[in-house]
């Protein structure tokens, strides 16, 4: 059993309070740094993809999990980041400048898309973003002078200060570094004044407003941050894919991102990364299982989407707090060993909260 026992003010807001936490994260970091030399080639590429999706999922988590604004159109920001990055690389902008610029451009678009969030919320906002993602896909297909249309756009290989990063291992490290930086930034942002304002807007707009939080401003800010981070992921994704087509950024990708944050557990950055890992690795896992299935089922491509749906349904029904919630429960079980009760995480009171009269 572990008790919070602060002996200085600083103790209350250090990120990793206990040696056990520090050791386990150090081990995780070592494992991730060593992984490219231990894993088979194929999995190094897969891990890089997991990191990219982790960044995108972190971006969406800021919006959905922390600010309570549902976006079903984040594939649009991935696409904008990817195309902006590829276009800038093709026009001679160096990689080190183009990568953050792609994030900034995506963030600027996020600002424009965030403006409606002042007026519409909930389901309506979800529909606006959904329509925006579809429209972006259409624009990507039509705006041939920049995006290459449906014929596609070749992405130049990443050159950082003259070093080619397109190799499997070097690209893995690039993605890992970006993920670590984004994670560090967001962890700190979410426990700052801004993050608390986000949570306030999520839990009760009226209460936050009455405490002096500029609700409209923070709603748009959440959009900008979320879009910028997702755009950064899009820029990395451009290198992972190598060849951009509008079909690569369809509605299913948006829904996959929402899946990641939902099964990860809303309102936790750890959950965003866990969810991204599960959802990105699922297709290759399914391809391992496929030979065991009857031939007729295995040949069709519908199995993947069925499993996605099944997992999402099971999480919504049986573990609404997602993977992060499960992790907290397991940890609480071991930390307070004999004292864990099954209802420890149960909400005291559940009631029907109608959103009809808003």
């Amino acid at each position: 059993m572990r008790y919070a026992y602060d002996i200085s003010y600083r103790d209350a807001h250090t990120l990793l309070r206990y040696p056990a936490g520090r050791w386990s994260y150090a081990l995780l970091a070592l494992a991730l740094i060593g992984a490219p030399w231990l894993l088979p080639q194929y999995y190094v590429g897969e891990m890089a993809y997991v990191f990219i999706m982790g960044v995108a999922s972190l971006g969406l988590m800021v919006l959905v999990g922390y600010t309570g604004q549902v976006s079903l159109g984040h594939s649009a920001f991935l696409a904008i980041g990817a195309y902006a990055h590829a276009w800038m690389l093709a026009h001679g902008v160096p990689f080190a400048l183009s990568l953050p610029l792609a994030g900034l451009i995506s963030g600027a678009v996020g600002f424009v898309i965030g403006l409606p969030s002042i007026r519409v919320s909930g389901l309506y906002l979800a529909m606006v973003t959904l329509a925006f993602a579809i429209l972006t896909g259409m624009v990507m297909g039509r705006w041939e002078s920049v995006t290459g249309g449906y014929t596609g756009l070749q992405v130049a290989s990443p050159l950082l200060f003259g070093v080619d990063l397109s190799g499997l291992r070097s690209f893995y490290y690039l993605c890992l570094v970006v993920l670590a930086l984004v994670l560090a930034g967001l962890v700190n942002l979410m426990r700052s004044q801004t993050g608390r304002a986000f949570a306030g807007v999520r839990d009760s707009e009226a209460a936050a407003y009455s405490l002096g939080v500029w609700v409209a401003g923070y709603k748009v800010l959440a959009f900008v941050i979320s879009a910028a981070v997702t755009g950064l992921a899009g820029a990395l994704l451009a290198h992972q894919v190598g060849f951009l087509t509008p079909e690569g950024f369809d509605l299913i990708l948006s829904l996959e991102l929402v899946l990641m944050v939902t099964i990860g557990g809303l309102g936790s950055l750890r959950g965003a990364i866990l969810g991204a890992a599960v959802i990105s690795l699922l297709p290759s896992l399914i391809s391992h299982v496929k030979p065991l299935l009857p031939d007729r089922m295995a040949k069709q491509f519908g199995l993947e989407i069925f499993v996605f749906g099944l997992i999402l349904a099971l999480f919504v029904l049986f573990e609404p707090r997602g993977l992060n919630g499960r992790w907290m429960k397991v940890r609480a079980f071991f930390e307070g060993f004999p004292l864990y009760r099954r209802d420890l995480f149960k909400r005291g009171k559940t009631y029907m909260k109608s959103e009809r009269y808003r």
Partner: protein
Amino acid sequence: MSQILQLSANGMAIGAIYALVALGLVLTYKATEVLNFAHGDVLMASAFVGWALIAGAGWPFWAAAPATMAIAALLAWLIDARVMRLIAGQPQFAGVMLTIAIAFMLRGLVSMGFGAQSRTYTTPWSGHNTDFGGVVVSDLNLVIVAAALVITLALFVFLRKTNLGVAIQAASQNQLAAYLSGIRVKRVTSLVWAISGAMAAVCGLLLAPIALVDIGLWVVMLKALAAVVLGGFGSVPGAIVGGLLLGLIEQFAGVYLPDGFKDAMAYLVLIAVLILWPRGLLGEAHGRRV
């Protein structure tokens, strides 16, 4: 002039489909406050079932249509009674995610069961046209408009004049009060889902001969969402007006606006209406409660 009439006729036909899909969405939304993202996939699945019965098993259209409607209604009933009920009382987001999950599962099952290639079947009206003084309308389009009219009228009479219909209205206005006055709220909401499922089946059966039986058929739901928003979210007459208007807007945009606007129009309308005019055409005023 005749071009305008011709476009209006085509727009009314496709708009009637949008209106029916939108109506199904609004009914379930009013009854359970869940925006049913699986509606389009119930529609798609019933188009496949209709194909299997008509082209596969060789049933006549008039036998296959009620059977398909019954299957879709049963499916929708089960979705509500066995799945959606488990999350009653949770935030709206949970309902959205769960219906998306059901949509994914349906799409996966259909594509595993039937395969991904598109197909078509013949209806009693395929290939016939009627000439209204220069305006040629295919009989299938006439049937679509007629079906939409009949279903809307039947639904109107059912909801206004029968005890069960009034019970449905009561249950969707205030579940607790309806329950206290002796209405079986659970059964009634499941019934609403079943009705909306059967309506999706009608849309699927009538849309499939025009647009091919295909996995992508569910996309019509996104257009219907635009219709719902245009008409005013949660308003039954609004859904119908919005659907018809959207059909007309699309047809005219296809001719009078640059290439590519026809497909984008529904989504542009959706965004514009939500931002500039969130009440829609016939929506109720929304106050905000704290």
